[in-house]
């Protein structure tokens, strides 16, 4: 072992390394001759080509076995998530604050709403049909054009005062802001047995300030998502489907203080008590209106 344990100087090491990189005696580069490098590279290329091929085949088989309309498993989506517009996030979740007198603080918020509602203009809802039944709109067959299913129309004007058509400031200017609540889509999800799911907003920790409960005006009336928007049959079956929306206009938000508001979806099959997921079945947000 003595021979292996000699202390080598730096220059010796460099020399050894150079010799390793290019050994003029044997014509070896990095320990192999050129032809051996070519062979080993070819071997690895071939190996990887074959393996990639096999993997591609596996993925192809996988794609063949997958139902194009409905996911195989939905157990991670037992209850839909709920989102809020406008969505401004602070350090911990949604955090919306603005100053009534300074309209620069809220134009951004209304702009978000306008952009969001652009998808609900009559033009973009053109391909959808009008529904009135307030019952689940089951469609087992593909009767819509291009082998699809029908989707029900939801236009911004259904939100009335919060549609941005009547009041482009969505009530922000007067300190009674509108917030739009959207329930996430889940394929073939039926939110409740008979009654339509309803949005219910309230202060998180009552009593608050003067102790009065939060006064809310819901659009559409009662804050319900009509049942005819359910079930959702997936992107391929319903390419033009738009989520139904509920707008909530808060009438008595105290000024100059931060309040926490929670909007829950009340329906038989929607849960809002998952401690790990703050956006399942409900949405919480902080709101601070300054004057």
């Amino acid at each position, binding site marked *: *072992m*003595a*021979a*292996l*344990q000699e202390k080598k100087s730096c220059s010796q090491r460099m020399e050894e390394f150079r010799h390793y990189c290019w050994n003029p005696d044997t014509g070896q580069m990095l*320990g192999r001759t050129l032809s*051996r490098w070519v*062979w*080993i590279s070819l*071997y*690895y290329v071939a*190996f*990887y080509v074959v*393996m990639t091929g*096999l*993997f591609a085949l*596996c*993925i192809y088989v*996988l*794609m063949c076995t*997958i139902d194009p*309309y*409905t*996911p*195989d*498993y*939905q157990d*991670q*989506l037992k209850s*839909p*998530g*709920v*989102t809020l517009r406008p*969505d401004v*996030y602070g350090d911990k979740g949604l955090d919306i604050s603005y100053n009534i007198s300074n309209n620069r603080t809220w134009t951004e918020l209304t702009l978000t709403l306008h952009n969001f509602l652009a998808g609900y203009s009559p033009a973009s809802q053109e391909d959808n049909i009008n529904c009135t039944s307030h019952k689940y709109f089951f469609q087992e067959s593909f009767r819509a054009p291009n082998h699809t299913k029908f989707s029900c129309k939801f236009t911004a004007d259904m939100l009335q005062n919060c549609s941005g058509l009547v009041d482009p400031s969505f009530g922000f200017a007067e300190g009674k802001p509108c917030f739009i609540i*959207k329930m*996430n*889509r*889940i*394929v073939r999800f039926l939110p409740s047995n008979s009654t339509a799911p309803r949005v219910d907003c309230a202060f998180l920790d009552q009593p608050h300030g003067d102790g009065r409960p939060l006064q809310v005006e819901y659009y559409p009336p009662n804050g319900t998502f009509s049942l005819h928007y359910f079930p*959702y049959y*997936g*992107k*391929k079956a*319903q390419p033009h*489907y738009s*989520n139904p929306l509920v707008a909530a206009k808060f009438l008595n938000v105290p000024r100059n203080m931060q309040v926490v508001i929670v909007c829950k979806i009340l329906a038989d099959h929607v849960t809002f008590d*998952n401690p*790990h*997921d*703050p*956006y*399942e079945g409900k949405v919480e947000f902080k709101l601070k209106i300054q004057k």
Partner: protein
Amino acid sequence: MEFGKTRGRVTPQELNPSSGPKPKRVPKMVGRRKKEKVKRKKNKANIEELKKEVVMDDHKLTLEELSRRYSVDLTKGLRPEKAQEILDRDGPNTLTPPPTTPEWVKFCKQLFGGFSILLWTGAILCFVAYGIQTYFNEEPTKDNLYLGIVLAVVVFITGCFSYYQEAKSSKIMESFKSMVPQVDNSSLTGESEPQSRFPHFTHENLLETRNICFFSTNCVEGTARGIVIATGDSTVMGRIASLTSGLAVGQTPIATEIKHFIHIITMVAVFLGVSFFGLSLMLGYSWLKAVIFLIGIIVANVPEGLLVTVTVCLTLTAKRMAKKNCLVKNLEAVETLGSTSIICSDKTGTLTQNRMTVAHLWFDKTTYEADTSEEQTVNTFAKDSDTWFILARIAGLCNRADFKPDQETLPIAKRATTGDASESALLKFIEQSYSSVKEMREKSPKVAEIPFNSTNKYQISIHLREDSSQTHVLLMKGAPERILAFCSSYLLNGQEYSMDEEMKEAFQNAYLELGGLGERVLGFCFLNLPNTFSKGFKFNTDEVNFPMENFCFVGLISMIDPPRPAVPEAVCKCRSAGIKVIMVTGDHPITAKAIAKGVGIISEGTETAEDTTAQLKVHVRQIDSRDVKAIVVHGSDLKDMSSAQLDEILRNYTEIVFARTSPQQKLIIVEGCQRQGNVVAATGDGVNDSPALKKADIGIAMGITGSDVSKQAADMILLDDNFASIVTGVEEGRLIFDNLKKSIAYTLTSNIPEITPFLLFIILGIPLPLGTITILCIDLGTDMVPAISLAYESAESDIMKRAPRDPKNDKLVNYRLIGMAYGQIGMIQALAGFFTYFVILAENGFKPADLLGIRHDWENSYVNDLEDSYGQQWTFEQRKILEFTCQTGFFVSIVIVQWADLIICKTRRNSVFQQGMKNKILIFGILEETFLAAFLCYTPGMDMALRMYPLKIFWWLCAIPYSILIFIYDEVRKFAIRNHPGGWLERETYY
């Protein structure tokens, strides 16, 4: 210097450095001491200087010159004040204890040595990355912090474990020591014979001259007065002790291998890290992110579990070796024995039984062989000759040795005796093969005796005759030539004939023959005293008043310290395993050669130059040294050799015996072997061997007869002192090297499916397929038992039939192993994992094509309506659960492909169908990893604890085709290797 007159058996005292001054120190006359310091350079003593023979001319001086030199009165000694002065100057007559390593230093060595460095580096990098992340408030995930902590904890625990293991084996050592009484054994020069001492200068060599006594030897017989010429560290023993503690010890082969492995891993890690650093910058990630990625990739390359695996594998082997009587003090030494290419073995006690035994008898002009095996249970020698009866009676009666009491239950060969080695040998032999010596002595009581001394070289005892209680018989034994001189007649088949030339020649031939076998020969004769010496006659042994001539010669008995029975086979095994066995002994060349031939170190049919010259009657110089494969080198020749000459001998001869060597020379021989690039094992028991034990790559001390100092210097201890145990040790060492290779190949393979997810996460922007926690679950959880189980794998071929590993080219981890593990099997495993990952995502709504580039939104906790391929919308938490389910799936897939990997790693060349599945631990390992994976996956609460989620049964199956693919691919590869030995595939993929 001592001017004694009688025999003084010189036995090494225990040289326990901690035990302080020994009561018996040579010479005994403490009052008249004179100390002389040869040269005292404290601990900084020049090692090269120490390696040389002691140069001293005191033994050449006459007593007068000596008394003048040391200004000491020969009768009164030193004046008290002068003695005090010298004592103050030189200190007490004790050896400076070697510096012992403090326990905390040992612990730190375990904690920061070898492999641990890699993990510490990984841990520090993790903390750095976490520091950067928190400082710049980048994605405040604590993964890096946790990973760093886990790495540190793993190194710490493993360090504690191996420290505990080594502490335990040293404890075994200590307990063993307390069990075994110290046995008198060979002296400084390696001779087990008592030696006489007198004031005359007899030999140039300090160690051979008869007028010097040495530190740590005992005077066993007689009295003497001497002059102290050296004390403490300047004595010969002191020089050896300081030589031992001053020697620099090299790295163990396995440490070198691990260093090499760390180089490779570091290169791979840095290469991957830097290239992906560049790539991520090109992909538009920020500098900060790229640095985090860089660190992440480097850390991901650290095989967290390997340190534990290697430590446990070595520990298991160490335990297995301990069962086979090889106690390993240092875990790394476990493998060293496997790489050993030269064993420098002691003779006495290691190759031989360390007890004199009757080997041959010569009477009636015939040589008879006696049984010298270790287990002499049967009556080994039963000749129906009257001469034999007489010979036996002489040997039994003219014998001062006796059995110690209360040993009737023991076999005769095992009983302890009083008296010197030769007489004990005779006693046991007669007791065994003739009749009870005790009865014999009772029937013929001894009336007078002249004990053996080195001037007379004979021993006489006079007994009453058994048959007629009136007359006496005079029995005599001694050096054969002296005995013959007394004889005028001889016995042949019980008949007395007068001595003739023919008989004398026969005697000479027999004497030469037995002497040539390296045996100690004694002659036996007797004389029936005439009736004038009737009962009650007062024999006077000082003024001999009885006849001392015309004896009747009976025969010769020769004795030897016979080789241990298992040794020849073991030496033969060593030879077929390509290990050169060199005998290094202090004994005479003839004895050494005889034993060497007996055990096969000099194989049958091989002759030394001297043998050849004797046959051909030519001069040694005229023989072509290339034809001669065996050589016996005398210590005095070795002294005059340059290292180049020694190298030449070591290179050119395959069978080498060094006789009459000094301790320093043993060291020189070991160094010479190491210069040739050999891994050297050295055995030894005495203090004198400790420098060689320390210098050798693996020093092997004797558990029973070994001195404490030698045990301290050694890396391994043979609990049964048997050379054959070394061979089993070699076997285990080689096996563990092979199995470590397999174990590392197995462990490294899963590194690729662990790294690639992170790489694709960066490049393709897909959700992270495998997280830090799951990686740790693999490395420190499921992979652990299977990797360790490979240590139990049996050898693929006869590992004792191949040459020792070439430490320069045959590396533990080479590029071929990395290529196989990383480049091929690991890649298939990664594909298996990704397949499962894509299956789970696709079946939950995210088709592969939609995943590309989804990372930005996926990782954004503010996006709570992320759309999948079906138009469903996912909150952050929902998709994270899906992601963790995928990671669990990826984890389970790795476990499943590791089944196949484990089975293919069982063998490197053979098919698994040839090897079989006999390794039960391995099967247990497969079951264990599967159950552990299922446990982690399905136990309630794991979702919160480790973020692992239950899987559908179908997702377990996704990886199975890949498992089969791995198995088939590797079987085909091995088939090609077996069928094209030396072919391209073997050169490029056989690790």
